[in-house]
Protein backbone atom coordinates (compact mmCIF):
# COMPACT_ATOMS: atom_id res chain seq x y z
CA UNK A 1 0.00 0.00 0.00
CA UNK A 2 2.94 2.28 0.65
CA UNK A 3 5.91 2.02 -1.66
CA UNK A 4 9.25 3.08 -0.23
CA UNK A 5 12.18 3.15 -2.63
CA UNK A 6 15.81 3.32 -1.52
CA UNK A 7 17.76 5.03 -4.25
CA UNK A 8 21.25 6.24 -4.94
CA UNK A 9 23.02 6.11 -8.23
CA UNK A 10 26.26 5.45 -6.34
CA UNK A 11 27.19 2.10 -4.83
CA UNK A 12 28.11 1.67 -1.17
CA UNK A 13 25.86 4.47 0.04
CA UNK A 14 24.04 2.16 2.49
CA UNK A 15 20.86 1.34 0.54
CA UNK A 16 20.75 -2.32 1.50
CA UNK A 17 21.48 -1.69 5.18
CA UNK A 18 18.79 0.99 5.39
CA UNK A 19 16.31 -1.15 3.43
CA UNK A 20 16.68 -4.24 5.62
CA UNK A 21 16.61 -2.14 8.80
CA UNK A 22 13.31 -0.58 7.76
CA UNK A 23 11.90 -3.89 6.51
CA UNK A 24 12.74 -5.67 9.77
CA UNK A 25 11.32 -2.89 11.94
CA UNK A 26 8.12 -2.54 9.95
CA UNK A 27 7.75 -6.32 9.82
CA UNK A 28 7.99 -6.63 13.59
CA UNK A 29 5.40 -3.91 14.08
CA UNK A 30 3.10 -5.30 11.38
CA UNK A 31 3.29 -8.96 12.48
CA UNK A 32 0.71 -8.76 15.33
CA UNK A 33 -1.73 -7.25 12.81
CA UNK A 34 -1.16 -10.11 10.35
CA UNK A 35 0.30 -7.81 7.73
CA UNK A 36 3.18 -8.47 5.39
CA UNK A 37 6.05 -6.37 4.09
CA UNK A 38 7.49 -7.05 0.64
CA UNK A 39 11.19 -6.48 0.14
CA UNK A 40 12.08 -6.19 -3.53
CA UNK A 41 15.75 -6.75 -4.27
CA UNK A 42 16.62 -5.11 -7.58
CA UNK A 43 20.35 -5.15 -7.00
CA UNK A 44 22.10 -7.87 -9.04
CA UNK A 45 24.30 -8.56 -6.00
CA UNK A 46 21.15 -9.66 -4.14
CA UNK A 47 22.46 -8.68 -0.70
CA UNK A 48 19.08 -7.86 0.83
CA UNK A 49 17.66 -11.16 -0.46
CA UNK A 50 20.64 -12.98 1.08
CA UNK A 51 19.88 -11.31 4.41
CA UNK A 52 16.19 -12.22 4.15
CA UNK A 53 16.97 -15.89 3.52
CA UNK A 54 19.14 -16.18 6.63
CA UNK A 55 17.46 -17.53 9.75
CA UNK A 56 15.83 -15.04 12.07
CA UNK A 57 14.31 -12.88 9.35
CA UNK A 58 10.73 -11.91 10.32
CA UNK A 59 8.35 -14.39 8.70
CA UNK A 60 6.04 -11.69 7.40
CA UNK A 61 8.72 -10.34 5.06
CA UNK A 62 8.07 -11.51 1.52
CA UNK A 63 11.13 -11.31 -0.71
CA UNK A 64 11.11 -10.67 -4.44
CA UNK A 65 14.50 -11.65 -5.79
CA UNK A 66 16.24 -10.69 -9.02
CA UNK A 67 13.99 -7.80 -9.92
CA UNK A 68 15.42 -5.84 -12.83
CA UNK A 69 14.58 -2.89 -15.06
CA UNK A 70 12.29 -5.03 -17.20
CA UNK A 71 10.32 -6.52 -14.31
CA UNK A 72 10.48 -3.95 -11.52
CA UNK A 73 7.23 -2.09 -12.32
CA UNK A 74 5.27 -5.36 -12.39
CA UNK A 75 7.05 -6.58 -9.25
CA UNK A 76 6.08 -3.40 -7.39
CA UNK A 77 2.49 -3.43 -8.66
CA UNK A 78 2.06 -7.11 -7.73
CA UNK A 79 3.56 -6.61 -4.27
CA UNK A 80 1.37 -3.57 -3.72
CA UNK A 81 -1.74 -5.76 -4.02
CA UNK A 82 -1.13 -7.75 -0.87
CA UNK A 83 1.50 -6.03 1.24
CA UNK A 84 1.11 -3.20 3.72
CA UNK A 85 4.50 -1.82 2.72
CA UNK A 86 6.68 -2.42 -0.32
CA UNK A 87 10.35 -1.68 0.22
CA UNK A 88 12.56 -1.53 -2.86
CA UNK A 89 16.33 -1.93 -2.65
CA UNK A 90 17.98 -0.77 -5.87
CA UNK A 91 21.34 -1.18 -7.51
CA UNK A 92 23.79 1.68 -7.01
CA UNK A 93 23.76 2.83 -10.60
CA UNK A 94 21.93 5.34 -12.78
CA UNK A 95 19.69 2.81 -14.47
CA UNK A 96 16.13 2.53 -15.77
CA UNK A 97 15.35 0.28 -12.79
CA UNK A 98 15.87 3.32 -10.53
CA UNK A 99 13.69 5.51 -12.76
CA UNK A 100 10.94 2.88 -12.98
CA UNK A 101 10.88 2.28 -9.22
CA UNK A 102 10.76 6.01 -8.49
CA UNK A 103 7.79 6.39 -10.85
CA UNK A 104 5.83 4.06 -8.54
CA UNK A 105 7.18 5.37 -5.21
CA UNK A 106 5.23 7.05 -2.44
CA UNK A 107 8.48 7.90 -0.67
CA UNK A 108 11.99 7.89 -2.11
CA UNK A 109 14.80 7.69 0.41
CA UNK A 110 18.03 8.90 -1.16
CA UNK A 111 21.11 7.55 0.59
CA UNK A 112 24.13 9.76 0.87
CA UNK A 113 27.41 9.59 2.72
CA UNK A 114 29.14 12.78 3.76
CA UNK A 115 31.19 13.04 0.60
CA UNK A 116 31.04 15.28 -2.44
CA UNK A 117 30.61 12.31 -4.82
CA UNK A 118 27.65 10.99 -2.85
CA UNK A 119 26.11 14.45 -2.70
CA UNK A 120 26.50 14.88 -6.47
CA UNK A 121 24.77 11.56 -7.07
CA UNK A 122 21.99 12.48 -4.64
CA UNK A 123 21.38 15.68 -6.61
CA UNK A 124 21.28 13.62 -9.81
CA UNK A 125 18.54 11.42 -8.33
CA UNK A 126 16.60 14.48 -7.11
CA UNK A 127 16.74 15.97 -10.61
CA UNK A 128 15.26 12.74 -11.96
CA UNK A 129 12.49 12.92 -9.34
CA UNK A 130 11.67 16.50 -10.30
CA UNK A 131 11.44 15.58 -13.99
CA UNK A 132 9.25 12.58 -13.19
CA UNK A 133 6.95 14.77 -11.10
CA UNK A 134 6.27 16.86 -14.19
CA UNK A 135 5.73 13.81 -16.36
CA UNK A 136 3.50 11.99 -13.88
CA UNK A 137 1.70 15.16 -12.75
CA UNK A 138 2.07 14.23 -9.09
CA UNK A 139 4.39 15.00 -6.22
CA UNK A 140 7.00 12.37 -5.44
CA UNK A 141 8.07 12.76 -1.85
CA UNK A 142 11.77 12.22 -1.27
CA UNK A 143 14.23 12.74 1.53
CA UNK A 144 17.99 12.43 1.79
CA UNK A 145 19.30 10.13 4.51
CA UNK A 146 22.93 10.54 5.49
CA UNK A 147 24.58 7.21 6.18
CA UNK A 148 27.75 5.88 7.79
CA UNK A 149 28.00 8.99 9.89
CA UNK A 150 30.32 9.17 12.88
CA UNK A 151 28.58 8.87 16.26
CA UNK A 152 30.51 11.82 17.68
CA UNK A 153 32.48 13.73 15.07
CA UNK A 154 30.71 15.73 12.41
CA UNK A 155 33.16 16.27 9.54
CA UNK A 156 33.28 19.67 7.88
CA UNK A 157 32.41 18.16 4.50
CA UNK A 158 29.19 16.75 5.90
CA UNK A 159 28.34 20.12 7.48
CA UNK A 160 29.04 21.84 4.17
CA UNK A 161 26.85 19.39 2.25
CA UNK A 162 23.92 19.68 4.66
CA UNK A 163 24.19 23.48 4.61
CA UNK A 164 24.17 23.46 0.81
CA UNK A 165 21.21 21.07 0.72
CA UNK A 166 19.32 23.35 3.11
CA UNK A 167 19.96 26.31 0.80
CA UNK A 168 18.64 24.26 -2.09
CA UNK A 169 15.58 23.33 -0.01
CA UNK A 170 16.41 19.66 -0.33
CA UNK A 171 14.42 17.52 2.05
CA UNK A 172 16.65 15.67 4.57
CA UNK A 173 16.12 13.26 7.44
CA UNK A 174 16.87 14.75 10.85
CA UNK A 175 18.46 11.48 11.88
CA UNK A 176 21.27 9.71 10.07
CA UNK A 177 22.37 6.10 9.99
CA UNK A 178 25.47 5.95 12.12
CA UNK A 179 28.32 3.69 11.09
CA UNK A 180 27.81 0.90 13.62
CA UNK A 181 29.19 -2.61 13.85
CA UNK A 182 25.70 -3.78 14.84
CA UNK A 183 24.40 -2.99 11.34
CA UNK A 184 27.19 -5.03 9.78
CA UNK A 185 26.51 -7.82 12.28
CA UNK A 186 22.83 -7.81 11.30
CA UNK A 187 23.87 -8.43 7.70
CA UNK A 188 26.34 -11.08 8.76
CA UNK A 189 24.25 -13.07 11.25
CA UNK A 190 20.87 -12.42 9.67
CA UNK A 191 17.64 -11.65 11.55
CA UNK A 192 16.77 -8.49 13.40
CA UNK A 193 19.03 -6.24 15.41
CA UNK A 194 17.09 -7.08 18.57
CA UNK A 195 17.96 -10.76 18.18
CA UNK A 196 21.70 -10.19 17.94
CA UNK A 197 23.77 -11.52 20.81
CA UNK A 198 24.69 -8.62 23.09
CA UNK A 199 28.14 -10.17 23.63
CA UNK A 200 28.81 -10.34 19.90
CA UNK A 201 27.82 -6.77 19.10
CA UNK A 202 29.15 -3.57 20.57
CA UNK A 203 26.66 -0.76 21.32
CA UNK A 204 23.62 -2.75 20.29
CA UNK A 205 21.35 -0.46 22.34
CA UNK A 206 22.62 2.60 20.48
CA UNK A 207 22.09 0.89 17.15
CA UNK A 208 18.52 0.02 18.17
CA UNK A 209 17.91 3.64 19.17
CA UNK A 210 19.25 4.77 15.79
CA UNK A 211 16.96 2.32 13.97
CA UNK A 212 13.93 3.49 15.96
CA UNK A 213 14.74 7.12 15.17
CA UNK A 214 15.02 6.34 11.47
CA UNK A 215 11.88 4.19 11.39
CA UNK A 216 9.78 6.75 13.23
CA UNK A 217 10.93 9.51 10.92
CA UNK A 218 9.95 7.40 7.90
CA UNK A 219 6.53 6.94 9.45
CA UNK A 220 6.15 10.69 10.02
CA UNK A 221 6.93 11.27 6.34
CA UNK A 222 4.36 8.66 5.32
CA UNK A 223 1.84 10.13 7.76
CA UNK A 224 2.29 13.54 6.16
CA UNK A 225 1.65 11.93 2.78
CA UNK A 226 -1.68 10.47 3.78
CA UNK A 227 -2.92 13.81 5.13
Amino acid at each position, binding site marked *: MSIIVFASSKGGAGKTTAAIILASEFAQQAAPKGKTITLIDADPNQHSAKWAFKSGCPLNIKVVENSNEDSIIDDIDNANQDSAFVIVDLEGTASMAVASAISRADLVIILCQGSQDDADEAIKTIKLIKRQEKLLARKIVYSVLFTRTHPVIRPRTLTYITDEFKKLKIEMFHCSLIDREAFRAMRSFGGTIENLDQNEVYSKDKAIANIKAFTEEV*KIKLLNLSR
Partner: protein
Amino acid sequence: MNNKRTGFDFEEVIDLDLVERVSNSSKTVSYKDLEQVAADSGFIKRLPQTKKSRRKRSPYTEQLGIKIRPLIKDIFQEIGEKLSVYDHTTFELAILALIEKENDQELIKKYKNATSKSIL
Protein backbone atom coordinates in the same frame (compact mmCIF):
# COMPACT_ATOMS: atom_id res chain seq x y z
CA MET B 1 29.88 14.96 24.27
CA ASN B 2 26.38 15.27 22.93
CA ASN B 3 24.94 12.00 21.72
CA LYS B 4 21.47 13.39 21.12
CA ARG B 5 22.31 14.75 17.68
CA THR B 6 19.41 12.89 16.06
CA GLY B 7 17.12 14.56 18.57
CA PHE B 8 14.19 12.22 18.19
CA ASP B 9 11.54 11.20 20.64
CA PHE B 10 11.85 7.41 20.64
CA GLU B 11 9.01 6.90 23.05
CA GLU B 12 6.37 8.21 20.72
CA VAL B 13 5.89 5.27 18.38
CA ILE B 14 3.46 5.93 15.56
CA ASP B 15 0.99 3.16 14.82
CA LEU B 16 1.83 1.57 11.46
CA ASP B 17 -1.87 1.53 10.54
CA LEU B 18 -1.84 5.30 10.43
CA VAL B 19 0.90 5.45 7.85
CA GLU B 20 -0.28 2.63 5.62
CA ARG B 21 -1.98 4.37 2.78
CA VAL B 22 -3.60 3.83 -0.54
CA SER B 23 -1.10 4.62 -3.25
CA ASN B 24 -1.11 7.89 -5.08
CA SER B 25 -2.99 7.90 -8.31
CA SER B 26 -0.77 9.38 -10.96
CA LYS B 27 -1.17 10.19 -14.59
CA THR B 28 -0.64 7.13 -16.76
CA VAL B 29 2.41 7.63 -18.92
CA SER B 30 4.03 5.41 -21.48
CA TYR B 31 7.21 3.55 -20.67
CA LYS B 32 8.85 5.35 -23.57
CA ASP B 33 8.15 8.75 -21.96
CA LEU B 34 9.49 7.49 -18.66
CA GLU B 35 12.57 6.20 -20.45
CA GLN B 36 13.09 9.59 -22.11
CA VAL B 37 12.86 11.48 -18.82
CA ALA B 38 15.25 8.98 -17.23
CA ALA B 39 17.72 9.30 -20.09
CA ASP B 40 17.58 13.11 -19.83
CA SER B 41 18.62 12.74 -16.20
CA GLY B 42 21.42 10.31 -16.99
CA PHE B 43 19.53 7.15 -15.99
CA ILE B 44 19.78 4.69 -18.84
CA LYS B 45 18.89 1.11 -19.67
CA ARG B 46 21.58 -1.24 -18.41
CA LEU B 47 20.24 -4.59 -19.51
CA PRO B 48 21.52 -5.72 -22.91
CA GLN B 49 18.75 -5.14 -25.44
CA THR B 50 19.97 -7.44 -28.22
CA LYS B 51 21.41 -10.88 -28.22
CA LYS B 52 25.15 -10.95 -28.66
CA SER B 53 25.90 -11.91 -32.23
CA ARG B 54 28.43 -14.70 -32.60
CA ARG B 55 31.48 -13.88 -34.63
CA LYS B 56 31.46 -15.74 -37.90
CA ARG B 57 34.40 -18.03 -38.38
CA SER B 58 35.92 -18.68 -41.76
CA PRO B 59 35.98 -22.33 -42.88
CA TYR B 60 39.27 -21.63 -44.66
CA THR B 61 41.66 -22.61 -41.91
CA GLU B 62 44.27 -24.90 -43.57
CA GLN B 63 47.37 -23.33 -45.10
CA LEU B 64 48.96 -24.66 -48.30
CA GLY B 65 52.32 -23.29 -49.44
CA ILE B 66 53.49 -24.57 -52.85
CA LYS B 67 56.12 -23.49 -55.32
CA ILE B 68 54.92 -22.85 -58.86
CA ARG B 69 56.46 -21.83 -62.21
CA PRO B 70 56.90 -18.11 -62.86
CA LEU B 71 53.75 -16.46 -64.35
CA ILE B 72 51.49 -19.36 -63.26
CA LYS B 73 50.64 -17.31 -60.19
CA ASP B 74 49.60 -14.44 -62.48
CA ILE B 75 47.36 -16.73 -64.52
CA PHE B 76 45.88 -18.14 -61.30
CA GLN B 77 45.09 -14.67 -59.99
CA GLU B 78 43.78 -13.50 -63.36
CA ILE B 79 41.23 -16.28 -63.57
CA GLY B 80 40.22 -15.55 -60.00
CA GLU B 81 39.73 -11.91 -60.92
CA LYS B 82 37.59 -12.85 -63.94
CA LEU B 83 35.42 -15.03 -61.72
CA SER B 84 35.38 -12.33 -59.01
CA VAL B 85 36.42 -14.77 -56.32
CA TYR B 86 39.24 -14.94 -53.81
CA ASP B 87 42.31 -17.16 -54.35
CA HIS B 88 41.07 -19.89 -52.05
CA THR B 89 37.85 -20.18 -54.06
CA THR B 90 39.78 -20.21 -57.36
CA PHE B 91 41.84 -23.07 -56.01
CA GLU B 92 38.78 -25.03 -54.91
CA LEU B 93 37.04 -24.46 -58.26
CA ALA B 94 40.18 -25.66 -60.06
CA ILE B 95 40.27 -28.81 -57.95
CA LEU B 96 36.57 -29.43 -58.62
CA ALA B 97 37.03 -28.96 -62.37
CA LEU B 98 39.92 -31.41 -62.30
CA ILE B 99 38.17 -34.18 -60.39
CA GLU B 100 35.03 -33.71 -62.49
CA LYS B 101 37.13 -34.00 -65.63
CA GLU B 102 38.65 -37.20 -64.22
CA ASN B 103 35.13 -38.28 -63.18
CA ASP B 104 36.44 -39.58 -59.88
CA GLN B 105 33.17 -40.12 -58.01
CA GLU B 106 34.86 -40.86 -54.73
CA LEU B 107 36.81 -37.60 -54.82
CA ILE B 108 33.74 -35.65 -55.96
CA LYS B 109 31.87 -37.01 -52.95
CA LYS B 110 34.78 -36.15 -50.66
CA TYR B 111 34.98 -32.64 -52.17
CA LYS B 112 31.25 -32.02 -51.68
CA ASN B 113 31.48 -33.24 -48.11
CA ALA B 114 34.44 -30.93 -47.41
CA THR B 115 32.85 -27.82 -48.96
CA SER B 116 29.27 -28.37 -47.72
CA LYS B 117 30.26 -27.18 -44.22
CA SER B 118 29.02 -23.65 -44.35
CA ILE B 119 30.48 -20.84 -42.26
CA LEU B 120 30.26 -21.89 -38.63
